[in-house]
């Protein structure tokens, strides 16, 4: 803003204002002067800089011309460098050619040396030397040699001659070595065999070498195996392992093959290294021989252990007991799984007889699994160290295929099938036997068969684990579940079905029973007693079995995890699923327990309770003060009733397992309340009668609650509420009880309004109209 403008904007109307304005203008002027002075002070600095710039300008011209020169030089150098590097490249090429040439010259020199040496070596039968020459020859580029021969044609003599000599020599040596090898085999000269085995790769016959050597070994092993098989029994006898004679022979066979691979693997890696499939070729040939030897062994095993005959016996016995399903019948009857114990059959196989065979088969199967695992591991190590990465997978794949398709594998599947058949028979028959031999010692709650049966089942599963086969283990677990669910549950249930012998209902029946037992010369009560004891024992057996199943599953789970540390997810799921199935048999056992409890309810509790509850009707509940005093002084109903109940429960307390006893008390409580309620409806009450009833119900409730660790209080709720109703002072008191918010300690009503009215009418001092008028 200019000064004039500033002035224009000012008000200069009065003197003061003029002064003020003047003052301001003076200030402004002073400021401007100051600025001007400072600018002037910078003048010489600026001048100095200007002159500096002037000087630099001339320098810059020099820089410009210099950099142009430099640029030219760089371009020149670049061109030079390019031409130099082209020369270097050419030189390198030349050097390469020279070295190739040198190589060829070397080759040629070697060729001559070799061709001379090989003839001499062959003449001297120095196969190693000749083979080394040939190996050197084979390592040369054959095409190049031929071209060289063409190139030098005419000049000097004999490149092509030398090549020809060597080719002939190679052919000759190959034939010769093969011949010598065969001779060595014939002479059974192991040292020579190994000598020539190492020569084969030198003359380029990797495959032949492996094949010939493998066949030689196979032949040796075959002889050995045959001899051992013939003496299997004697050897076993000497080692006192007769029962494992064939498993031991099988082990020996497999060990032999494994050893061959183990011993020869380093040799093959050293001499046959270039051909990466050498070891797998050998394994393949060996496996073939192994199949044959195992087949021979198993034939002998089958014959000697009478496997066919025994399998047939087992199958026949199974079919017999299954009732022989009619083939093609249109109606498929529900046979269920229950097999009748087919004792007494003449040619029935004794499970003990096959116990040893089963054990032997499991050992055999486990050995083969071990053998396959060993071979796989060997090959894995081999391919990881000696085989190019891209071929590794193919070779392992090839091994898996060899293994999967091998006859040995197939035979093991067959033998596993035999194992499962025999194991199932052994298990089922042993279980039936344990059931048949069931004994009960007084004082015990369970009988011998529970321990026996679970011992057998655990033995079977454990044995299945030793086969090392997941499929086999799963099948045995399934069979165990079937056996428990079938034979075992049925055996427990049979005595429960016929009911609990409840003693004699009336005198006539008792008299008859005594007569008959006297005639048969028995103690008269023993039959019924034994029946009762048996009933309770089986009930306890069923109860304890539910725990045993749990334990069995847990133990087996651990042992399975220990036996198969590396399982695939599918295998894991399969095992889990089978174990779950086994655990589910618990449900069938629980149903059995429930069934038995219902039998107790109908044959013991109900009939016994009846007369006792009837006693209740004999006590009047229309009492005056005196009568009440007299009643309370004497034996009250509830005292009598509790004594009776106590007697009843005590007769069961020691013979039932704790859980079953609790269940019994629970059933008893239910039944007592039902019957008592029915009795209450049959009589009438006055105020004091109601009081007595309430006391009695409370006493009963506390007795039953004290009798068991389970809660029976909820079972008593309804009857307590009835007693409360009948114990009302006035009918109007009901509203205090009826509304739950008025009474916290009372659980919600188990009675409908109609029922409440019905029970209230039992009080003869309540008026019908009042009851009707109740708002519920």
């Amino acid at each position: 803003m200019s000064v004039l403008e500033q002035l224009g904007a000012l008000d200069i109307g009065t003197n003061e204002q003029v002064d003020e304005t003047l003052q301001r203008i003076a200030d402004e002027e002073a400021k401007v002067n100051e600025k001007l002075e400072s600018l002037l002070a910078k003048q010489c600095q600026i001048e100095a800089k200007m002159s500096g710039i002037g000087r630099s300008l001339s320098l810059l011209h020099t820089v410009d011309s210099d950099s142009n020169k430099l640029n030219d030089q760089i371009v020149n150098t670049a061109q030079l460098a390019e031409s130099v590097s082209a020369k270097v490249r050419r030189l390198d090429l030349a050097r390469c050619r020279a070295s190739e040439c040198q190589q060829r010259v070397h080759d040629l020199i070697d060729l001559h040396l070799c061709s001379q040496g090989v003839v001499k070596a062959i003449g001297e039968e120095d196969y190693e030397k000749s083979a080394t020459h040939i190996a050197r020859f084979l390592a040369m580029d054959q095409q190049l040699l031929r071209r060289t021969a063409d190139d030098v044609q005419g000049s000097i003599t004999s490149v092509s001659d030398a090549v020809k000599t060597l080719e002939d020599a190679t052919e000759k040596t190959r034939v010769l070595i093969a011949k010598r090898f065969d001779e060595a085999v014939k002479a059974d000269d192991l040292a020579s065999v190994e000598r020539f085995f190492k020569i084969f790769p030198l003359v380029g016959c990797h495959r032949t070498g492996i094949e010939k050597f493998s066949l030689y070994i196979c032949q040796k092993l075959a002889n050995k195996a045959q001899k051992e098989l013939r003496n299997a029994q004697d050897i076993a006898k000497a080692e006192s392992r007769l029962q494992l004679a064939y498993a031991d022979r099988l082990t020996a066979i497999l060990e032999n093959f494994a050893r061959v691979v183990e011993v020869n693997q380093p040799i093959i890696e050293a001499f046959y290294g270039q051909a990466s499939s050498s070891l797998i070729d050998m394994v393949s040939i060996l496996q073939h021989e192994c199949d044959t030897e195992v087949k021979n062994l198993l034939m002998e095993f089958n014959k000697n252990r009478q496997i066919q005959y025994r399998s047939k016996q087992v199958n026949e016995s199974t079919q017999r007991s299954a009732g022989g399903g009619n083939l093609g019948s249109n109606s498929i009857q529900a046979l269920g799984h229950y097999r009748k114990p087919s004792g007494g059959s003449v040619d029935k196989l004794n499970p003990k007889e096959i116990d040893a065979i089963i054990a032997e088969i499991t050992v055999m199967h486990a050995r083969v699994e071990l053998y396959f695992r060993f071979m796989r591991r060997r090959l894995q190590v081999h391919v990881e160290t000696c085989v190019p990465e891209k071929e590794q997978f193919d070779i392992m794949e090839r091994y898996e295929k060899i293994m999967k398709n091998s006859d040995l594998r197939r035979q093991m599947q067959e033998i596993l099938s035999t194992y499962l058949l025999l194991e199932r028979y052994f298990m089922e028959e042993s279980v039936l036997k344990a059931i048949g031999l069931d004994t009960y010692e007084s004082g015990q709650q369970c009988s011998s068969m529970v321990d026996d049966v679970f011992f057998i089942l655990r033995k079977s599963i454990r044995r299945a684990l030793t086969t090392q086969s997941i499929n086999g283990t799963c099948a045995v677990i399934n069979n165990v579940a079937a056996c428990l669910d079938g034979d075992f549950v049925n055996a427990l249930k049979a005595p429960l079905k016929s009911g609990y012998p409840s003693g004699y209902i009336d005198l006539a029946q008792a008299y008859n029973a005594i007569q008959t037992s006297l005639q048969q010369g028995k103690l008269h009560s023993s039959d019924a007693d034994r029946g009762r004891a048996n009933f309770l024992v089986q009930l306890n057996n069923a109860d304890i079995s539910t725990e045993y199943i749990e334990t069995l599953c847990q133990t087996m789970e651990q042992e399975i995890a220990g036996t198969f540390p590396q399982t695939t997810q599918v295998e894991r799921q399969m095992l889990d699923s089978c174990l779950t199935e086994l655990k589910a048999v618990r449900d069938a056992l629980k149903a059995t327990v429930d069934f038995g409890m219902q039998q107790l309810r109908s044959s013991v509790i109900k009939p016994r309770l009846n007369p006792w509850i009837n006693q209740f009707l004999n006590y009047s509940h229309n009492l005056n003060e005196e009568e009440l005093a007299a009643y309370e002084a004497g034996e009250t109903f509830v005292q009598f009733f509790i004594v009776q109940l106590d007697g009843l429960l005590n007769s069961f307390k020691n013979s039932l397992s704790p859980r079953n006893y609790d269940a019994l008390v629970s059933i008893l409580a239910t039944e007592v309340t039902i019957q008592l309620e029915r009795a209450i409806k049959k009589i009438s009450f006055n105020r004091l009668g109601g009081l007595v009833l309430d006391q009695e119900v409370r006493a009963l409730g506390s007795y039953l609650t004290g009798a068991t660790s389970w809660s029976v209080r909820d079972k008593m709720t309804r009857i307590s509420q009835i007693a409360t109703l009948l114990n009302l002072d006035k009918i109007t008191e009901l509203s205090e009880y009826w509304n739950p918010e008025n009474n916290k300690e009372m659980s919600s009503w188990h009675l409908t309004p109609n029922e409440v009215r019905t029970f209230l009418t039992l009080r003869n001092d309540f008026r019908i109209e009042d009851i009707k008028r109740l708002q519920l």
Partner: protein
Amino acid sequence: MEDYKFLFKIVLVGNAGVGKTCLVRRFTQGLFPPGQGATIGVDFMIKTVEVEGEKIKLQIWDTAGQERFRSITQSYYRSAHALILVYDISCQPTFDCLPDWLREIQEYANSKVLKILVGNKTDRDDREIPTQIGEEFAKQHDMYFLETSAKEAENVERLFYEIAAELIGQARSKDGSSSAAAAAAQRQSEGSSIGLGSFSAKAAQSNCCGGLASGGSNSSQGG
């Protein structure tokens, strides 16, 4: 925990090479792997399906058809809710063996197990067993019937879904809809009281049979 309301076990049986594994693979993975090797022992797959708004876990046991695995495969019959008996419509011997299979089923399986006869490989031109023959056989032996092609994915989904629906129906009619019921349903126990559904097996069959066979030319009269 996995979220499903029912767990059903389905076991496939039948001669070697009729296509059991292919049916299972087609259903569980949507694949048809040609050149399948023979199954060893048993194989096991799980697929969760939704039927009538319920999540159903199907545990499918694919068994080996070869004789030497019989003692392994037999052990799975007992716990099966449904058994699928498969034959090859282009191979008479596989059909001729059906009575043998039925005998095995009768001996080892729960008497109330759901049985389905499946003629597989309808994609093949060289059919040897006419649909009607298979149907007759199924009717005679109280089985449901369906023809499938694992290769063309024909009727495969339907087969398993219908089985699931039928098993749900049985489980529900037996006991409300608690999942424990499904587990308990397999328990063969005390004759008739606890089994696969309390409603008449015959009625169930005619329902499902009609349902299974109603589509296309191979419709049947029902049970």
